[in-house]
C-alpha cells in the first residue's frame, strides 16, 4: 500500500519528461493528473499511519522525508495551478520520486518517544517541512532561470527558450517561494526553540540533551536560515534578482538536502528519532 504513492510519483515523472521533451499537451495533463493522484494516495497513506500509531508519522527522518515529499507535491501542484505552467514538473517531480523511495524502503513508522508528545512539535516539524518544500521549488525555478538566462545571453535560442516561461515569471516565482519558505523556516525554528526551553531542563533523553547550537543538524539549519535571510535582504535592499538570487537559492537548497539526508541519518545526535 505504501508503495503506491512512490509508483505514481515515478509515473508522473515520466509523464512530465514526455511533456517537456515533446511538448505534448496531453502528456502534460496526464502528468498533472497522476501527480495529483500520487499526492492524494500519499496523504491517505500518511493518514492511515497516523491512525495506526496515534501521531503524525513525521518523527524519524524517513517519516519527515515522506511528509516533505507530500508537501512539496501539494506546493508544486498549487504553483502549477496558479501559473498554468507545467514546465517545472520535469525538474521537481523526479526529486519527489527519489526522496519518496527512502520512506517506502524503510516503511515502518518510527515510534514516538514520550518527550516528543507535544503539539509544539507537530507545528515545528510541519513548518520546517513546508519551508523545505518551498525552498525546493525556489531552487528548481532558480536553476531553470539560469538555463534560460544563458540561452538568451548567448543568443542561442533553443531547448529551454521554447519550453520555459519568461525570466521575469521565473524570478518572481523564485522570490515568492523563498519568502514563503523563510517565513515557515523561522516559525519552525522559533517553535522548536520554545519547545526545547520547556522540556530540556528536566529531560533525561540524551537526544534532548544534545540539542544545542553545536549539534550539526541545528547549526546547519541556522546556516540555511542565514543563507535565505541574506537572499531576502539582497533582493529587497541590494537589488539582487535574477541569476544571483537564483544561484543563491540553489545553494540554500543543496544545504537543506545535505542537512536532511546525510546529516539527518548519520551526523546528528539530537534529531535521530527512528
Amino acid at each position: 500500500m505504501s508503495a503506491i504513492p512512490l509508483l505514481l510519483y515515478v509515473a508522473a515523472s515520466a509523464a512530465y519528461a514526455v511533456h517537456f521533451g515533446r511538448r505534448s499537451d496531453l502528456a502534460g495533463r496526464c502528468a498533472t493528473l497522476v501527480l495529483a493522484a500520487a499526492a492524494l494516495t500519499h496523504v491517505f497513506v500518511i493518514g492511515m499511519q497516523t491512525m495506526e500509531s496515534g501521531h503524525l508519522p513525521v518523527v524519524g527522518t524517513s517519516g519527515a522525508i515522506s511528509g516533505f515529499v507530500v508537501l512539496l507535491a501539494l506546493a508544486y501542484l498549487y504553483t502549477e495551478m496558479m501559473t498554468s505552467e507545467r514546465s517545472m514538473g520535469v525538474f521537481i517531480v523526479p526529486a519527489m520520486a527519489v526522496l519518496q523511495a527512502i520512506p517506502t524502503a524503510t516503511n515502518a513508522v518510527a515510534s514516538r518517544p514520550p518527550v516528543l508528545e507535544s503539539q509544539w512539535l507537530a507545528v515545528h516539524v510541519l513548518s520546517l517541512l513546508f519551508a523545505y518544500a518551498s525552498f525546493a521549488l525556489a531552487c528548481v525555478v532558480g536553476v531553470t532561470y539560469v538555463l534560460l538566462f544563458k540561452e538568451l545571453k548567448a543568443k542561442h535560442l533553443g531547448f529551454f527558450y521554447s519550453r520555459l516561461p519568461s525570466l521575469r515569471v521565473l524570478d518572481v516565482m523564485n522570490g515568492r517561494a523563498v519568502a514563503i519558505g523563510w517565513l515557515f523556516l523561522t516559525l519552525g525554528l522559533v517553535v522548536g526553540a520554545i519547545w526545547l526551553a520547556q522540556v530540556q531542563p528536566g529531560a533525561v533523553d540524551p537526544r534532548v540533551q544534545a540539542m544545542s547550537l553545536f549539534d550539526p543538524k541545528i547549526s546547519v539549519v541556522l546556516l540555511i536560515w542565514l543563507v535565505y535571510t541574506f537572499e531576502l535582504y539582497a533582493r529587497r535592499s541590494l537589488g539582487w534578482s535574477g541569476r544571483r538570487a537564483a544561484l543563491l537559492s540553489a545553494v540554500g537548497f543543496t544545504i537543506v538536502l545535505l542537512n536532511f539526508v546525510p546529516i539527518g541519518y548519520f551526523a546528528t545526535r539530537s534529531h535521530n528519532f527512528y
Partner: protein
Amino acid sequence: MNLFLLGASHHSAPIDLRERIDFTRRGVPEALGEIGRRTAVHEAVVLSTCNRSEIYTVCDNPRHAGQTLTAFMSGFHDVPESELAPHLYARHDADVVRHLFRVAAGLDSLVVGEPQILGQVKDAFTDAARQGHTGTVLNRLFPWSFTAGKRVRTATGLGEGAVSVSYAAIALARKIFGKLENLHVLLVGAGEMAELTATHLRAQQVREIGVANRTSSHAEALAGRVGGTAVPWERVANELGACDIVVAATGSASPIITRADVDAALRPRLDRPLFIIDIGVPRDVDPAAGDIEQVFLYNIDDLRSIVQENLARRQSRLDRAELMIDDEVNRFMAWLRSRAAVPTVIALRERFEAVRQAELARLQPKLAGLSPAARARVEEVTRLLVEKLLSSPTERLKATADEEDVAAYAEMLNHLFKLSERPQDDRETEPEAAAEALAAFSRDRTR
C-alpha cells in the same frame, strides 16, 4: 457531384493582378450572389485574402464550371479573360480537399505556418454559409479543414517562432519580461524600423515610449504617431537608466550608446534587465555593452538569424505536415464517396414504402372491419417489418467506401428491385421521406 476549385494565389499570379481580382473590393457577398445566378454550381465559398482569391464549388460538370467561373471572374473584376486565365489554377475532387486543407494549415501561405489564414478561411465559410451558398458537401469540407488545419499546426509546431525581425524582437522581449505592460521603452532614431517595432510594442501595451532623434522635429512626429513622448537627443544616455527596452535604429556611422553609457546608467538599478535591440546598420550600440550581466543586446544580424532558424525549422516540419494532410484528405474522400450510396438508399426505402402502402391500400376493404386500435397495429407491424428488412442492407451500403463497390451495389439493387422503373414524379411526392433518410444517413456518418 464534383468538387471544383478555381483560383489564383501568390504562387500563380503577380501582385498587381492579385490586387485586381481581390473579391473584397466589390464584396464577397456580391460575388457569391453573382456566382449563384450566373453559374450552375450547387455550392460555393469565396476565399479572398491579400494573397489569394479562390472559389470553392460543388458542381455537376467541372469543365463547364471552370469555363463559367473563369468568365465570371473576368467579368466581376473587369479583367480580360486572356490576361486572367494563365494565372488561374483549377483543382478537382481530392485535390480541392488537399488544397483547402493545406491552405487552412498555413502550408500554402507566403510565410509557411502563418496563423491568420485559418481565421480567414473560417470567415469565408461563415459568410457563404450565412447566405445559404453552402450545402452538405462544403458544410462538411470547411469545418473539417479547420480541424485538420489546427491539428497539423499543433502537432508539427508549424506556426512557432517569429518569422519577421520585429516580431522576433517582441518575442524576445516577452521571454525576458513576461508581459510587456508597465515597461518603459526608448526609441533611438525615428526611422521606419523604429516605427514598426514601436507599433508592435504599443500593441503590447507598454507603459511609456520615449523617442529620441538628432532632429527633434522627427522625434516629435514619431512620438505623436506611436503615442510616446519626445526625448532630447543629448538626454539619451541619462534616459537609459529608466528603460527596460531600448530600440536603436539610426543611420549614424559611429555607435551612439557606448558601454560606459550603459554601465553608468545601470549601476543604480543592479539586476533589473535591459533589453537592447540594435537594428541600426552600422551598429548604434557598442557590442561590448552586451557583456554587462543584465544586458541582453541583440543586433539586426542576431534577430535575422533567429528568423532564419525559425523559417528553417518550419520548413523541416513540412514533410510531416504533408503526411498528416494526406491522411485527412483520405478520410474526407472516404466520407464523400460513401455519400454516393445515398440516392440508392433513398430509392430503396421509397420502393419498400411504396409496396407497403400499396398492400395496405389493397387490403383496405378487409381492414375496414377492424377496430382503430387494431388498424394502427397493422400499420405499425408493416412499418416495422419494412424497417427491419432494410436495416442491414442500408448499413452495409453506408459502410461501403469504395466507389466502384457502391456503383456495383447500386446497379444490382436497381436491377433486383426495379428501382429505376419507378416514375420520377413519384419520388417528388415524398420529399420528406427522402430528406429524412438523408438526415439519418448524415447523422450516422458524423464522426
